């Protein structure tokens, strides 16, 4: 058994998955990439022509794009950060043995299995100033004096959208981290306890480093999903008020399906993907570096 044979056989195993992905996803992506170099604006001119990098040039003069990029970054990082924090807390909580743990775990997963587009509509109503249950409860609890139109001002609208996303997808993070926690041998934590480390230090020095691979999986995939989030925001605010919650994928979608400007819509999408690819690459490099030693 030599190394070269092993490598060959491993590629044979990987190739089907890779080719499948290439056939279904990569070809459409290449199409979008090609369109991004065209003047492809169906309403203006039904003949498409080569545009070089014109579409990418347009980006720099487009204030709406800059704004949407800022919104995307804001939305993505705040929701993923909160989800990781909350997901970790929930995972630590549900990691402990108690009666009815199975049921509680399943109940906590529930938000994740509800259809996003419909729950987004429900969230918009929950945040409504007149009939919204959020305002009613907060007023009953004495936390609020008058009802607030949560989706009516930029800061509160962004916060509400982020909260809805956190509610919806924290269970995904919780599940992944919960699993990671159970993979950590009890003996390791026990040893740290016997060494006299306080609970917080045990968490910081022992548990979290061992949990890093799960955090990486959960964080990366959440980052990607949040970055491309569409239906939640589209339904809750439509990008409003005043464009304060419009994300890049919303803007790209509108260029595509509403303005029929495929060249520019494609350029928006390609640029977003390139940024995210660089970011994921950096994250994986950073996270894997110490792990390579093993």
């Amino acid at each position, binding site marked *: 058994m030599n190394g070269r044979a092993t490598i060959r056989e491993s590629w044979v195993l990987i190739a089907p998955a890779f080719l499948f992905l290439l056939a279904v996803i990569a070809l459409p992506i290449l199409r979008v990439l090609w369109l991004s170099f065209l003047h492809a604006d169906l309403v203006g001119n039904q003949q498409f022509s080569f545009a070089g990098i014109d579409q990418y040039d347009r980006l720099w003069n487009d204030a709406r794009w800059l704004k949407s990029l800022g919104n995307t970054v804001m939305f993505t990082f705040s929701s993923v950060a909160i989800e990781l924090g909350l997901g970790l807390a929930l995972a630590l909580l549900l990691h402990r043995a108690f009666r009815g743990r199975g049921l509680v*775990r399943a109940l906590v*997963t529930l938000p994740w299995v509800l259809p996003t587009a419909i729950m987004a509509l429900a969230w918009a109503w929950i945040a409504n100033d007149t009939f919204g249950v959020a305002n009613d409860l907060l007023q009953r609890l004495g936390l609020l004096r008058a009802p607030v139109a949560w989706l009516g001002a930029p800061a509160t609208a962004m916060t509400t959208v982020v909260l809805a996303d956190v509610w919806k997808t924290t269970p995904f993070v919780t599940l992944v981290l919960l699993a990671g926690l159970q993979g950590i041998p009890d003996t390791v934590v026990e040893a740290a306890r016997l060494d006299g480390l306080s609970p917080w230090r045990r968490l910081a020095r022992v548990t979290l480093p061992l949990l890093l691979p799960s955090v990486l999986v959960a964080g990366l995939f959440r980052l990607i999903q949040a970055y491309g989030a569409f239906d939640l925001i589209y339904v809750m605010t439509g990008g409003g008020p005043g464009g304060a919650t419009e994300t890049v994928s919303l803007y790209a979608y509108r260029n595509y399906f509403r303005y029929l400007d495929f060249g520019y819509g494609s350029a928006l999408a390609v640029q977003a993907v390139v940024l995210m690819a660089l970011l994921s690459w950096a994250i994986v490099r950073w996270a894997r570096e110490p792990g390579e030693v093993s």
Partner: protein
Amino acid sequence: MTRRVAFAIAILLALAWSLGPVLWQILTAIKPDAQITHAPLVYWPHPPTGEHFRAIWERKPFGLYLLNSTFIAFFAALLCLVFATPAAMALARLLPRDRDRVLLTFLVLSLFPPILLLFPLYEAVRGLGWINQPVALVVPYAALHLPLAVWVLESGFRSIPVSIDEAARLDGLSVVRRLVRVLAPLATPSIVTAGILVFIFAWNEFMLAVTFLTRDQAKTVTAGIASVSGASLYEIPWGPLCAAITLATLPLFVLVLVFQRRIVSGLTRGAVKG
């Protein structure tokens, strides 16, 4: 004692946060119409009504929608696993040097916002004559979640001690046999986990489902809910809508309840770093 109380409070808070909005939808589903948007807010319907459930069940072939969704999500998960399992195994065992690079390539291919793949995928699906066929969703769903499945499975395989399959290799088993007979059974929990994750994502997907399956008989649950309507274009029929959400969620809740032991143990294996 105080720690136990604090723990109980924390659990209750977690439940309240997760279930609050769900509960609100269920309450809405059993409220008579006039109480749904009434100020001051009505929390407990008086009297509770089943009319919205009845309306949904009578007006729409909801059972069929549930069946379609189950069928599509199941085969999407299966197809995804068929491709992801061998790849993950190879990555975990055979390619230590290129592993991260390959994993990252898979990740990058999942970066593209799915909403913008809608049109090229539609062209392909139509070219293949798959419009209104479940396969039109099965294939894209399997592909879209392949990277996640590979990542979860790869770490699952990696957590199985190398000595086990090393022994099998010395016994003269071929790669396929090692995979099928030795590694796969050990990794069942992570395979089930990956399958469930893909199943849920497929169950909830919306834009592709609405675009590719337009016939009423072919629709999935999410697309079916999107066609719940009131008497006019502008009206949002909250009662039937919430009843539909409740109906659509029940099967998934049961699924999660049954499989959560496996999900968690599967992800457990998945997360141990090799």
